[in-house]
């Protein structure tokens, strides 16, 4: 990546998995507002269902998710009971309307739960919302918690997409993030998942982790390619120790500097592309023929809370503590606190505590940002037309700066991201976001 671009790599840009972003959520949106939207779901309307499992066996020091280390499985069982009650509460509202096209179990560590408990949750989803054989059913897996016959059991339950948290294969890096998992273990997991018949396997890899070097990361990427996952996500580690206590275990001096970060992301991109993967958006890669690559090729790539997706649903049903739903312009987030979530859900209530309604202006901004991130090109004239003079001036000034650095090009109202600057797509998106802070205000010293 060009030297002048490195400072942008240190900008903590929102992930734009929603717009407005979660920072804009307020307590004005509660269970009643969400219930009212659930009532309006149409028959056969495609639904994307997200199930949050907040438990982990151990704490990874880089983690930024809503999770807790739990040693008492009894508490996890209480959570499963609450989750089932919540699914039933949503089902009572939907009354058979809507149809899941995708179910995604994320975490935390979804496979913290035993296969029998995952089966129970899936079965209630099938009863309440309906499931068909063409639904994508995905689960994020911690390879360290994958028991002997888990892959077979999960595949038999209908999980047809699995994702392994790899992060990095280097032992020094693994020690520095408190996540030790050998290559042999991962290789065995991949073998088990493949022999279970799963043909959509994804790896998560992180760059910018402590102790990463150019050499260690090259070796990690080469091992990833050797294991031939169908998809790879390459995320940049965001170090926010002030906000995330566990990240204080990571020493600042172990973190790669801006120059190294930019080399790491470039290496991953070059190697994955050379190995035949297609770049999807700014941080995903998929083998040609994979549904995500097909969606990209056919121009129907989308972005939701899980990142880039081939899922067609506009409507998201979020289940579990802190999960976010989206129906007809309303974002609704569930109670985060596990105890409060459990109490409310077990009483048969929806647990929405925060959210935001998209305004007409938000709708236009959201559309422009999604197009930019998914297709790297967007006509910004509709956006200019609805912004006030002040916001329009700010957008022009940010785009001017990015255009000067050749991160983007603006021709006749059409904004394009320089393909070489793909990793800066979120920064370019910030320029279209009238609510985003100035780049300088959210930059880390890298």
């Amino acid at each position, binding site marked *: 990546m060009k030297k002048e671009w490195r400072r942008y790599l240190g900008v903590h840009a929102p992930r734009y998995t929603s717009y407005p972003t979660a920072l804009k959520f307020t307590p004005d949106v509660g269970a009643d507002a969400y219930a009212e939207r659930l009532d309006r779901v149409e028959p056969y309307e495609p639904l994307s269902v997200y199930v949050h499992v907040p438990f982990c066996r151990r704490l990874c020091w880089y983690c930024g998710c809503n999770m807790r280390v739990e040693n008492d499985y009894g508490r996890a069982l209480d959570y499963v009971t609450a989750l089932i009650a919540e699914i039933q509460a949503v089902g009572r509202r939907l*009354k058979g309307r809507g149809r899941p096209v995708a179910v995604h179990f994320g975490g935390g560590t979804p496979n913290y739960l035993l296969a029998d408990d995952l089966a129970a949750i899936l079965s209630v989803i099938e009863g309440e919302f309906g499931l068909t054989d063409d639904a994508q059913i995905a689960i994020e897996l911690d390879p360290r918690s994958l028991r002997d016959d888990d892959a077979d059991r999960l595949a038999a339950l209908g999980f047809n997409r699995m994702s392994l948290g790899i992060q990095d294969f280097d032992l020094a890096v693994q020690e520095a993030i408190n996540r030790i998992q050998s290559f042999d273990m991962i290789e065995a997991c991949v073998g088990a998942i493949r022999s279970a018949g799963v043909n959509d396997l994804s790896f998560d890899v992180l760059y910018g982790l402590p102790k990463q070097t150019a050499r260690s990361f090259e070796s990690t990427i080469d091992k990833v390619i050797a294991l031939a996952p169908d998809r790879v996500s390459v995320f940049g580690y965001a170090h926010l120790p002030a906000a995330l206590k566990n990240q204080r275990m990571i020493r600042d001096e172990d973190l790669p500097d801006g120059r190294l970060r930019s080399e790491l992301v470039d290496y991953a991109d070059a190697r994955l592309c050379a190995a035949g993967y297609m770049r999807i958006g700014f941080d995903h890669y998929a083998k040609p023929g994979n549904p995500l690559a097909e969606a990209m090729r056919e121009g129907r790539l989308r972005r939701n809370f899980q990142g880039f997706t081939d899922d*067609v649903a506009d409507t998201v049903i979020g289940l579990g503590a802190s999960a976010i739903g989206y129906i007809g312009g309303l974002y609704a987030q569930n109670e985060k606190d596990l105890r409060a979530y459990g109490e409310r859900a077990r009483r048969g209530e929806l647990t929405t505590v925060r959210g935001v309604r998209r305004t007409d202006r938000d709708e236009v901004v959201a559309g422009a940002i999604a197009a930019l991130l998914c297709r790297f090109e967007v006509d910004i004239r509709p956006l200019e037309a609805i912004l006030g003079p002040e916001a329009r001036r700010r957008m022009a000034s940010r785009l001017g700066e990015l255009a000067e650095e050749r991160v983007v090009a603006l021709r006749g109202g059409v904004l394009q991201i320089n393909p070489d600057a793909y990793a800066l797509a979120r920064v370019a998106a910030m320029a279209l976001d009238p609510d985003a802070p100035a780049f300088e205000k959210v930059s880390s010293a890298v």
Partner: protein
Amino acid sequence: MDVPLKHKSCVSESRPVACELCDVRERSICADLRPQELSHVERIMSRKTVAKGRAIMAEGEPNEALFVVVTGSFRLTKHLEDGRRQVTGFLYKGDFAGLRTTEENPYTAEALEPSLICHFPHRFLDEAARVSPGVKDRLIARAQTEYHKAQDHIVLLGKKTAEERVHSFLLSLADSIGEAPHQGRRRTRLPMPRQDIADFLGLRLETLSRTLASLKKKGRIVDVTRNDVVLVLDDH
């Protein structure tokens, strides 16, 4: 009488032969027609055999005709934008499709077995309505059944367990095409493949198989085969 039913019938006003012979007349839209109207309608309709797997209407195509199922059965599907399909219903003897509530066909209807239909082009129906002003109103009233079928599906999908959904489906199937109840049991054909039933009920094939096995174990059904099932009636 030796009028071949599959041929377009074009007989004298006084003797609507094909319709007189039709054993679904009592259950179809024709039930509401007076003899005079019936003979008018008969002149604009044609009978067609439909081979298994053939579509009589395709989603998104112009809605040009009304169909009545005389024998056989059809599967109704809607497509999602990524090519996946939703089975939204089935048509049996006496059911119809294509009443002009939309410009385009709202779904695709494909024959599940060799079937026979009556086919009424809308433009001729409109003419008939001018001649016999009551016809159209009664047809529109009948359109409610198309709407009710869609409502029934949502009610069915609103049932919370696989067992309730499968059992309700079998009961309603028996009401449509089942044999007469006999000693507390009722046999019905299953003209559609298992996958279609599963898709229709919002269940996965594996769940449907497990549920059928469980209903059998509980004695609510007996003799479930690929092509038919015998229901044990609850109130016996």
